[in-house]
């Protein structure tokens, strides 16, 4: 054990060239496979257009798509950036009192299992038709899951660590910041990552229902006019937004949570 363990660990940490090259090979294979397969079997473009056509058509219509892309990006980013502190702060507040945790955890679970996108149709009623209000959907869709995960982290601190804090005479704030919060960071980041996925889903759903703007709306429009290449182009763009946000969060996590293997 003593011998084999450090080595396997090292292997993982190093950037194995396989880990970089293999996915690229897969990408190329998928691309060529789809391109050839779709042409040979003459798959109609409404089922799946060829990747090359998606790229060409999307690039050609990019000036039409750009405002929607920027709009969706704005909605997701603002909503997500508000949801993170809201979720964490709410969790921090609840975690201060044992009884509040017990009382509020089921409420947060309730908010998580009831998709907040169910409120989209009512949002217009309450707040009007300004597309910018879709930020609110993103916030309420992403906040509960961030809050729930953070709360789980806050309430699962080992007793010894709290005793350690007490033994060195830490104040309540010091204990919270340096022990409870740091200890919960892995869960906090899990929550934020999930929040990122929930944000994009919320934004696209809001586009679907409220229409008029955004990539979700653009997909419906392109599909209606049989511009399937552009539809898929928009989906790829949404996917890129999602993975970019996720990757940013992951990079920050790697910087901060150094002790997680």
């Amino acid at each position: 054990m003593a011998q084999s363990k450090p080595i396997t660990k090292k292997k993982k940490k190093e950037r194995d060239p396989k880990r970089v090259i293999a996915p690229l090979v897969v990408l190329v294979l998928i691309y060529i496979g789809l391109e050839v397969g779709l042409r040979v079997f003459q798959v109609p473009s409404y089922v799946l257009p060829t990747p090359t056509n998606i790229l060409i058509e999307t690039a050609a219509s990019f000036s039409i798509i750009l405002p929607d892309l920027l709009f969706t990006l704005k909605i997701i980013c603002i909503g997500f950036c508000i949801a993170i502190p809201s979720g964490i702060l709410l969790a921090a507040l609840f975690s201060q009192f044992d009884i509040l945790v017990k009382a509020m955890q089921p409420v947060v679970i309730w908010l998580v299992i009831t998709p907040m996108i169910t409120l989209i149709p009512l949002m217009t009623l309450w707040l009007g038709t300004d597309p910018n209000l879709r930020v609110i959907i993103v916030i309420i869709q992403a906040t509960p899951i961030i809050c729930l995960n953070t709360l789980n982290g806050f309430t699962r601190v080992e007793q010894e660590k709290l005793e350690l804090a007490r033994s060195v005479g830490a104040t309540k704030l010091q204990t919270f910041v340096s022990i409870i919060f740091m200890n919960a960071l892995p869960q906090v980041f899990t929550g934020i990552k999930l929040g990122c996925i929930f944000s994009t889903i919320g934004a696209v759903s809001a586009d679907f229902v409220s229409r008029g703007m955004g990539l979700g709306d653009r997909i419906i429009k392109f599909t209606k006019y049989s511009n399937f290449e552009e539809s898929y182009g928009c989906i790829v763009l949404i996917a890129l937004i999602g993975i970019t946000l996720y990757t940013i969060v992951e990079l920050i996590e790697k910087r901060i949570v150094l002790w997680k293997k």
Partner: protein
Amino acid sequence: MQTPKIKFDHVTKVFETRSQTIVAVKDYSMEIQAGEFISILGPSGCGKSTLIRMLDGIIDTTEGDIFIDGVKVNLGGKKKMPPEVLRKMGFIFQQPNMLPWYTVRENVALPLRVFGLKGKEWEDRVDELMKMVGLEEYANARPSEISGGMLQRAGVIRAMVHDPEILLMDEPFGALDELTREQMNMELLDIWQKTNKTIIFITHNIEEAVLLSSRVYVMGTNPGHLVETVTLDLPRPRELSMITQSKFIEYRQKLESYIGEIDLSKIK
């Protein structure tokens, strides 16, 4: 001349990572006769664990051959060791390594399930072994419900349940406290005397090595290699009280000197 039970013939193991090549074991040879109790002693990172993992087919060899009963067992590459060879060995890990979803008894009987050994005589054997180490009450307990010492006992009898001829022990009691450890060592000697198994015992504890074994193979690091073989001329059965005898202390100091040399060379 009798065929040795186990033979390492110039065995080398190299681990390759992208940035470096680590020689874990270099040109290692030893011969062990049936029924012997030998120790492999060395500091951590000397490749002693790698040795018995190669013997048990967990890790493949880079160079050299390993024989059991005169038959070559390292088939090279990813080729799995045949079950009839694996059945000759039982591996005891440093941690209890119980699977938490099985009961203690199911854990102990795991090798029987995998090797396909069914029938009353095997079931009886499980119960017998459980009784031998005082686990019969905990047969249906989950591993999380019993103490570390108990778990390690379960680990020992799990390695014996399919009646192997060879026991490979990878610092088996290293994670236990001193008292439990001494007790387990004596129990182990007792088992060995009763069953006449061939035992390879890995440890970094000199006293333990001297107390238990007939011969000690001392290993050094960078790369892992054999430094010295010390045959222990101490009477059997061994007892804890022997630790204070002059002969015991002499052996201990001798081994200490070898280990000490290694440590110095490591600093360089």
